[in-house]
């Protein structure tokens, strides 16, 4: 690969202790600078300098700033969203998920406090154990509040969030065949995803 380099003997860096110290210190200072101005604001919304916000890097963790794009829906929304409707998905959104055999999955919606979600879901046949619950934003203790737990084949209802965070379903499939779930929702949320 690098045979042609043979006459070129590898250079070895020899630094005095003082310069070594200088370069090490500089690399740390530079690392801290990048961390504080770019990495931490973008990754964790920790923005001690305010520079990350100026650069527009704090948007990734700030769900209220996320523009609400109406997810692919089967019914087109006829009215345009007015200011007060921001964050509301007027149209029904249909989500199809597969719960693999012998596994559990979580499907969650990112919502602010006191937002409402109406839902209807049904499986392709067999009943599934589920836990409809919410986890507060920023919580590190693993706390969650269950709104409904049962084993059903379909369910319809709505809930209003007691706190900001992610809210949704845990479905568990104890059978040896995958189960399809069709979930139809309408309400206020900024994001939805398989967890």
């Amino acid at each position, binding site marked *: *690969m690098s045979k042609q380099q043979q006459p070129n003997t590898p*250079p070895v*860096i020899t630094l005095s202790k003082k310069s070594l110290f200088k*370069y090490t210190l500089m*690399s*740390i200072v530079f*690392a801290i600078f990048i961390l504080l101005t*770019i990495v931490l604001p973008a990754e964790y919304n920790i923005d001690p300098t305010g520079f990350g916000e100026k650069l527009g890097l704090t948007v990734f963790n700030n769900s209220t700033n996320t523009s609400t794009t109406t997810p692919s829906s089967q019914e087109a929304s006829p009215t345009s969203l007015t200011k007060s409707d921001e964050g509301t998905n007027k149209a029904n959104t249909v989500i199809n998920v597969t719960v693999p055999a012998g596994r559990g999955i979580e499907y969650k919606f990112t919502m602010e406090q006191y937002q409402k979600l109406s839902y209807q879901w049904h499986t392709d046949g067999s009943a599934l154990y589920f836990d409809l619950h919410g986890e507060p934003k920023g919580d590190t203790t693993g706390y969650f509040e269950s709104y409904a737990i049962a084993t059903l084949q379909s369910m319809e209802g709505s809930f209003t969030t007691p706190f900001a965070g992610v809210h949704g379903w845990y479905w568990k499939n104890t059978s040896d065949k995958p189960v399809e779930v069709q979930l139809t929702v309408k309400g206020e949320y900024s994001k939805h995803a398989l967890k």
Partner: protein
Amino acid sequence: MFNNFQRYLLLSITFFLAVSLSFESLAHGVDEATRAFLLNNTGVQLMPFLYIGAKHMITGYDHLLFLVAVIFFLYKSRDVLLYVSMFTLGHSLTLLIGVLGNIEVNAYLIDAIIGLSVVYKGFDNLGGFKHFLVKPPNPKLAVLIFGLFHGFGLASKLQELQLAQDGLLANLIAFNIGVELGQFTALAFILIIINYWRKHSSFKRFAIATNSILMSAGFILIGYQLTGYAIN
């Protein structure tokens, strides 16, 4: 033309721009589509796992930074092969043991150690250990040991996916082979660039600045991962 300090600043600015412009596009880990695929598919999936492994390595800047640092001063093909083999041996071992033995390691802490491996090699390239130790640590052994930590990092990424037991071994081996293919591809590009660069005098002039930046990148990874550990 430039003194070392100016070269350092020049590279720092370039690096700063690179990070600020492309941070999100470099997002590491496993994306949503991959996650959804794995959740919905069980059993032996050789090609998908091969692909996920290769993609993880090619887009895995932490592993690549370490590789760049390791081969920076390796001029002989034999040495490149030897060191890369040590790294491969190390990470394959812990990838297999970690996943099969279900060893739960904290991904943040492991990724912080991977950051430390970059700092270590950058510091080593700067000749740093000559000042502090009577005898510098055996570089091959160091690469092997850090390789072990890189393997736990790979294992933790796979464990995040909560893989089904069904077909686990075959999938794991496919992932491992994918990682090596990805590493080989990435290494080929790195070697082409570095060999070209070595023919120019700028390689020697920028050697100190480059290794300082590598150290910086390692410190950034450490800070990023330790912050993640602290808040999660």
